């Protein structure tokens, strides 16, 4: 009896895990069904599998190809992540390893900008972009996504760099190592896993963003999430196609998320939880 009771929490956890994962599993299964099999009630669990959904999503039946949108998303996410690292690394250095005076105040200023809802700046950004001829330009999104992720990156990076023991840096300096050497040989190896996790989290947030992309891009610079919203316009059955599309577009995020799994909490809680 006692053995049974000890196993109950584990079984409950498994049950919860399966319930939470069920929609994703069902999405994956449906993406491999034909449209006719995808739209049945009761659901067809054992219908024949096909790649038609994926073929159609990738423009098989003369629909719009998703590749330009995927490429735009990749450019916006990767370029903004690189820019974030470029700006956040030196800033985090000045907030941890060689801190400026009142460094906590500066850190909290960064955080406070993240608390401003992005939607409040939407209109001026739109008007500016329109006047500067930057509408439908992917580089505008790169700049905006950089500003969106910069506070998170500074916070995360600060907490990772602060983990580098001061004594180790001191020792290297005493041994006559110059700053670049200290940074590349001493600081980087210790802080690298954290920097990688920061980059992955910034990538995820940029890849997911919809509101700004939707308002500021059109045909040329459309990103994958915008493509997805414009996907369901025609009549008829589209479930398998939507499932295939959602899965393909979520794959980079799932991959990045699981790669950063261990540091995910620290990043999402802005370094407050380790």
């Amino acid at each position, binding site marked *: 009896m006692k053995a049974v009771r000890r196993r109950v929490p*584990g079984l409950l*956890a498994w049950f*919860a*895990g399966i319930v*939470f*994962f069920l*929609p994703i599993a069902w999405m994956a299964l449906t993406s491999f069904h034909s449209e006719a099999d995808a*739209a*049945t*009630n*009761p659901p067809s669990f054992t219908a024949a599998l096909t790649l038609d959904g994926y073929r159609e999503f990738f423009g098989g039946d003369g629909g719009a190809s998703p590749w330009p949108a995927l490429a735009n998303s990749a450019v916006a996410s990767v370029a903004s992540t690189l820019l974030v690292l470029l*700006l*956040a690394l*030196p*800033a985090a250095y*000045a907030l941890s*390893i060689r*801190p*400026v005076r*009142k460094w*906590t105040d*500066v850190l*909290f200023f960064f955080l406070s*900008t*993240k*608390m*401003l*809802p992005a*939607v*409040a*700046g*939407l*209109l*001026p950004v739109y*008007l500016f972009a329109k006047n500067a001829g930057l509408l439908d330009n992917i580089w505008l999104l790169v700049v905006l996504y*950089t500003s969106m992720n*910069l*506070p998170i990156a500074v916070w995360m990076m600060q*907490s990772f760099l602060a983990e580098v023991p001061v004594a180790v*840096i*001191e020792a290297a300096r005493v041994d006559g190592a110059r700053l670049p050497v200290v940074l590349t040989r001493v600081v980087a190896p210790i802080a690298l896993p954290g920097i990688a996790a920061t980059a992955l989290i910034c990538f995820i947030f940029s*890849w*997911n963003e*919809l*509101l700004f992309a939707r308002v500021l891009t059109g045909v040329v610079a459309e990103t994958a*999430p915008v493509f*997805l*919203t414009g996907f369901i316009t025609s009549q008829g059955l589209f479930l398998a196609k*939507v*499932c295939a599309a*959602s899965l393909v*577009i*979520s794959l980079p995020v*799932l991959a990045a*998320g699981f790669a950063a799994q261990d540091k995910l*909490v620290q990043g*999402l*809680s802005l370094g*407050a939880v*380790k």
Partner: protein
Amino acid sequence: MTATTAPLTRTPAREARRPPARLRAWATRAPLLPALVFLIAVTQLPFVATLVISFFDWNALYPKARRFTGLDNYRQVLTDADLRHSVWTTVLLTAAVVLASLVLGLVLALLLDRRFRGRGIVRTLLIAPFLVVPVAAALLWKHVLYNPEYGLLNGLSHYVGGPQPDWISRTPLLAVEVSLVWQWTPFMMLILLAGLQSRDQQQIEAARVDGAGDWQIFVHLTLPHLRRYLELGALLGSVYIVQNFDAVFTITSGGLGTANLPYTVYQSFYQAHENGLASAAGVLVVIGSLVIATFALRVVSSLFREEVSRA
């Protein structure tokens, strides 16, 4: 929040050859400047512009008719039934999603805190919903799960002879909330799990030796320890969910009384071209978030200071 909390002051190696203090201070600050300047230019300036525009009567279709109206836009936003309703919707949506995902997240974190076979796999299964692109998740719920004719929910209900409701038109706000709870529960779970794992195990052992039961330990030791993690989860969750656009936009297009403030700002600017009104609504969103943010910053700061003093 003073410089004295800085644990990392170091002894200069070669004081004699150092440049004067002021130069040195700027050299220390220099790495910070690009990020600061960039952030102020891209996030703070547009907000100032929004504030200014919110005092103008400005329809984008009639730019010539633009004029200063003082607080008129605010009066209009606050007296407009639709807009007032969207303020209420935002509060309701945020509170419901945050509370539900916090409670669910706590239960899941408590389950995952124990050892059992396949814990790693279950953890991965539970995190997955958070890693689906939000628009994709919203589409998944709308078309694949909620669809009254062939959605999975009604499909499963069919097996047990249950009802076949049209979920979205019957309970539109709840439909949006459930999809968001599904996505945000993993987030809460991760934060609370980190909290659980930072408990003082010796203290729990001691309590157990003194004869405390599971429930007593949970109420008197675990919950007080988790308090700040719960606060942090609630506040960060609120900051993100107050701004939610994707789910409302996709699942109901703001219809059936589900338009929240971000959607309303989007709509009044995108469809009605009312720049002044959109800006006033935007400013109100900011004021609302500032209230949450002040608390959030306080919680983050107390956790942060604990970390710094522990280091």
